[in-house]
């Protein structure tokens, strides 16, 4: 195990990720509303040593009750409409909704019309759109970091960050 830890320490130095400018945090809840699993695989990579989003105070939390941000992937299917609305309703205010990936934005949707509701904005107010099929981990990281640092949403996120510990 020491070998793995040593390799990881070396990898971390090689990658040389910058440290955050100031201590803030956001708690994120992910909901897959009907994706192809591409967005989920890229989101998972955000925790890997190449991105290490936790260092910025960004973490995926287990429940929408703990979350500041609802990160929704996929075009919303008719069967996921209700679970998505329940997750949103469970979040404390203020809350933000991020639509992740082209499907969530309503680009080139494929499927049977009876089985699809449409893009996330068809049923929830969307604050931030992250395009891509799927968006790369860099694109996801940059967009979410923008929610904390110097983004159009910055004034409201100062109150959002008070619900979870700073980094």
């Amino acid at each position, binding site marked *: *195990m020491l*070998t*793995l*830890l040593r*390799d*990881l320490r070396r*990898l971390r130095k090689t990658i040389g990720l910058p440290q955050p400018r100031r201590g803030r945090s956001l708690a994120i809840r*992910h*909901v*897959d*509303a*009907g*994706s*192809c*699993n*591409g967005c*989920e*695989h*890229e*989101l*998972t*990579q955000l*925790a*890997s*040593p*190449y991105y290490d989003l936790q260092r910025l105070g960004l973490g*995926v939390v*287990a*429940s*929408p009750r703990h979350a500041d941000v609802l990160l929704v992937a*996929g*075009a919303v*299917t008719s*069967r*996921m409409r209700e*679970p*998505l609305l*329940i*997750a949103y309703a469970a979040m404390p205010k203020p809350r933000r909704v991020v639509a992740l990936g082209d499907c969530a934005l309503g680009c080139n949707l*494929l*499927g*049977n*019309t*009876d*089985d*699809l509701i449409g893009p996330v904005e068809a049923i929830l107010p969307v604050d931030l759109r992250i395009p891509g*099929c*799927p968006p*790369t*981990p860099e694109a996801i990281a940059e967009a979410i970091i923008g929610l904390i640092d110097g983004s159009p949403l910055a004034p409201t996120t100062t109150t959002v960050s008070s619900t979870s510990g700073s980094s």
Partner: protein
Amino acid sequence: MTIPAVESYRERVGAALAGGSRFAGLHATSDGSHVRTLLADPDGSTRLETVAPERGVVPSIVDLAPAAGWDEREAHDLQGIRFAGHEPLRLLVNHDPALERWVPVRGDDVYQLAVGPVHAGIIESGHFRFHLVGDRILHLDAQLFYKHRGLERAAEGKTFDEGLAYVSRACAACNVANGVSYASACEEALGLAPTAELRRARTILLELERAWSHLNDIAAICAGVSLAAGNNSFAALTERARRLNVVLTGHRFLFHTIRVGGSELALDEEQTQVAREELASINAAARRGWRELLFNTSFQDRLPDIGVVSATHAERLGAVGPGARAAGLAQDLRADSPLLSYEGFSAVVPERAAGDVQARLEQRALELWQTFEILDGLLERPIRPAVAEAGGEEHPIGVGRVESPRGATSCVVERRDDRIERLRLRTGSYANWPVVAYAATDNLLPDFPLINKSFELCYACVDR
């Protein structure tokens, strides 16, 4: 095989299964006028046994092939077929809100735990209903299809080229395997045969997909045991494999690399050399990481005898892929793939093929070493764009089968002229979900995430 006309559909399927054929899928035509069972014969060939419903009813084959259970439930929900003898025929794609229609589990202290469709981690949506006594799982019902997008229905009437987008959208993680099975099905229907160069291009793409997928699976199993160092190490290797995909094809998940009737993959000598060097480096790092995992006792202690699926039950339930091989069933479509470039390939199984989490983890490592070796050989020389050769016999129905990272994937394409009349994609994940539910039985609830990750199935290409 000559079959007397008097034999019924059930008798024909029963005789084929008794003769060593395996069930490989069942679907109804879009108008519900026919039900077809796909059988894979021991010599690698496939055939369809077709029956026309009488007043919407066909005899069930679920007693002959338990693996047909989900297929029959799907054909009931989507095409309105009723299956005589399949009792109770519970809803699968359509969700039944009535609790009493779940499998009833009764007894002292039995309670239900409902999990999902929204999960605690970054996981696809699906619902698990556990029936428990304390922490012990008596029964698990998996209710998927929350992500059903009706992709197959939407593809009907499209051209073969257009159909590829629907198959690709089914699942990012199995995009190449699903795409190749679809392209092969279309090419069989159109009388096209892949050339050696096309076979090599597709095999390279299939093995690049398996490389990142298996690295990701090992990372996921480490996460299931909360071994952060193992999880991070293999997640980093997964990232390197995806970055290599960008260098070679322009896309981390190899999107848009598969075409019906050809391939545009072009890698010159420099690119193949870069790929071989990076793959050799990832291979070396993965082997170093694997040794570390082997000697980590607290990690290893979580793995044996958890989520056991014996060879008998794996066979009975129609398990495919690493899960089946880890139980000792040396079945791998790559060993008999004349449309791909797997010359000399034979399936590996672990020495201790116990069908538990430990065996499924080891299976990933053994297959990774194979994949690195296959890729090194296939990338020895540059690869050029290629097309399939025309002139073969055309068919009204084409079948394509590919060994995806999660097991045998079958695609059936029924054509009307040059358009799709019916498309059915039955992926390795689809075959294996009932096996996961079985594997959870009698285990502790806190071990379920680990059991689930030891299969690491997709929901997207099941739900479609």
